[in-house]
């Protein structure tokens, strides 16, 4: 056994190393807009941030809880439309429409999850797939609310604490804040009794249930939280692009986000982030392939799932987990 002094020193060292990593990463992220990147690049960076929120949240239900959802774009759409409509009709600002959009997406997920998640196996995949089509068709046909295929143009730019967000740099800092909020929230959820219940369900649902995990309750909770953040991403998207139509929220979008999660590694937070960056850029780089680009997503899913389910990063999750546990240990010795 280690002595208490060694323990405390170890704890200090771990915390110091962790905070140094965080400070370093944050500093790097803060100076990106100072690199005078062109508009196109900045737009790609901002969209990568949006996809990070989508991928991290899908990762919660699919990567950590083990429930395959093929309709994440539906909650993205619900968030975007909720925000756009509240903003257009009532002139509400982003600070109100964003949480409202996230809550709306979460509420819909809750209502959809209760009957669906009772069923075992592939039902969630099928239901979410069908549901996202329904959302798209409703958006296409409910002219009075969504203006159908004409979409909603001229969505107000966000105003945050008196600042009007208009330039790419300002949008960058806004999405950065949202990504950090999402990351921290999900990180805290995953590294807690809740997160352990989610992972236990993925690992062995019968054993989890026998240990007292109410699997229906936790699946619904995971699905609802995932939808909450997808709705948040949708809200940002609506206020960023300032124009939305049903075309932005197709099944392809769900598959793209799923591919990000799978490429980076199911059940890995850094994986979801790196997957989002790669797969936001790759389609732009491969524009000459036109619609054949979709094959790339199929290939990622088919190749990665069986051969490398831990994603391209692989061992990263394990290292971070270990660090977390070490911290645990240190805390326990106080």
């Amino acid at each position, binding site marked *: 056994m280690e002595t208490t002094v060694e323990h405390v020193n170890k704890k200090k060292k771990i915390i110091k190393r962790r905070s140094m990593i965080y400070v370093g990463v944050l500093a790097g992220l803060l100076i990106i807009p100072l690199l005078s990147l062109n508009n196109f690049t900045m737009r790609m960076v901002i969209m990568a941030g949006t996809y990070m929120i989508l991928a991290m949240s899908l990762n919660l239900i699919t990567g950590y809880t083990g429930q395959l959802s093929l309709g994440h774009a539906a909650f993205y759409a619900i968030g975007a439309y909720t925000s756009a409509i509240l903003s257009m009709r009532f002139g509400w600002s982003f600070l109100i429409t964003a949480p409202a959009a996230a809550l709306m997406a979460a509420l819909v997920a809750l209502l959809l999850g209760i009957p669906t998640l009772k069923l075992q196996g592939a039902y969630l995949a099928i239901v979410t797939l069908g549901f996202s089509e329904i959302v798209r068709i409703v958006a296409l046909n409910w002219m009075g609310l969504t203006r159908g295929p004409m979409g909603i143009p001229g969505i107000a730019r966000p105003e945050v604490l008196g600042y009007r967000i208009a330039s790419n740099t300002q949008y960058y800092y806004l999405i950065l804040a949202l990504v950090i909020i999402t990351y921290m929230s999900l990180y805290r959820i995953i590294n807690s009794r809740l997160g*352990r*219940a989610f992972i236990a369900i993925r690992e062995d649902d019968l*054993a989890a249930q026998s240990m007292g995990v109410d699997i229906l309750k936790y699946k619904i909770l995971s699905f609802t939280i995932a939808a909450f953040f997808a709705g948040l991403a949708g809200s940002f998207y609506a206020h960023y692009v300032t124009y939305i139509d049903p075309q932005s929220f197709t099944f392809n979008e769900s598959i793209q986000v799923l591919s990000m999660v799978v490429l980076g590694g199911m059940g890995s937070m850094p994986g979801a982030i790196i997957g989002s960056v790669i797969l936001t850029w790759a389609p732009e780089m491969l524009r000459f392939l036109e619609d054949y680009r979709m094959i790339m997503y199929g290939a990622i899913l088919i190749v990665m799932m069986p051969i490398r389910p831990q994603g391209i990063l692989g061992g990263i999750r394990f290292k971070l987990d270990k660090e977390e546990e070490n911290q645990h240990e240190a805390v326990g010795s106080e």
Partner: protein
Amino acid sequence: MKLLEVNNLTMAFGGLKAVNNISFHMEEGEIISLIGPNGAGKTTFFNMLTGIYIPTEGSIVFNGKNITGTAPEKIIKEGIARTFQNIRLFPHMTVLENVLVGMHSRSHNGLFHSLFRTKKFYQEEKRNAYKAKELLATVNLADKCNEYAKNLAYGQQRRLEIVRALAAQPKLLLLDEPAAGMNPQETEALMKYIRGLKDKGATILLIEHDMKLVMKISDRIYVLDHGVKIAEGLSKDIQNNQDVIEAYLGKGA
């Protein structure tokens, strides 16, 4: 006081009665063994006690409460925890995390406390991690805390599963062939450990199909064959029971 009372329990799968009209009882502090050849219905009996199967007939009364047909996640709150014949750990969770999941029913941190990392959150996490490590130390797994469960040796996995069940602080511990696949030394150590639990006041129901193994540590033994209870009693009576010998060795033995 009777801790567990099972009356005329039957589990039918189609035409097959895997468990047929079994009555059974346990007192607090006892170690009871449930033995019988493969396919006798022992695991099915556990599955009914833990809510995984709903009995076709009969009742289960635990701690004075009728728990027949109660869902598994509620059974553990009533105070029954179990291990599985074919180990069911959470392979990609660490050893410590496996035990922490075992404490799920005894802890409370929800979304709010987790998100805002409240004082209560840290208190509970700290207390649970401490208790989990204490438990792991009792089965010599303290130094494996940060290993993935899947990377443990077979015997270690068996021990981890027992500790995960104990983490729920059950009033009754169900062990389904905990020694299966262990070498003689590991088995010996395990039996000693189980007796140690009893000395600390645990009540244990043990499934085994190796009769010799349980003779020494059991207070009483129930013998099942083809779903039917063919004998019950003290170890020495069972050993010489003609029906039991036949069930194990075939007729004419």
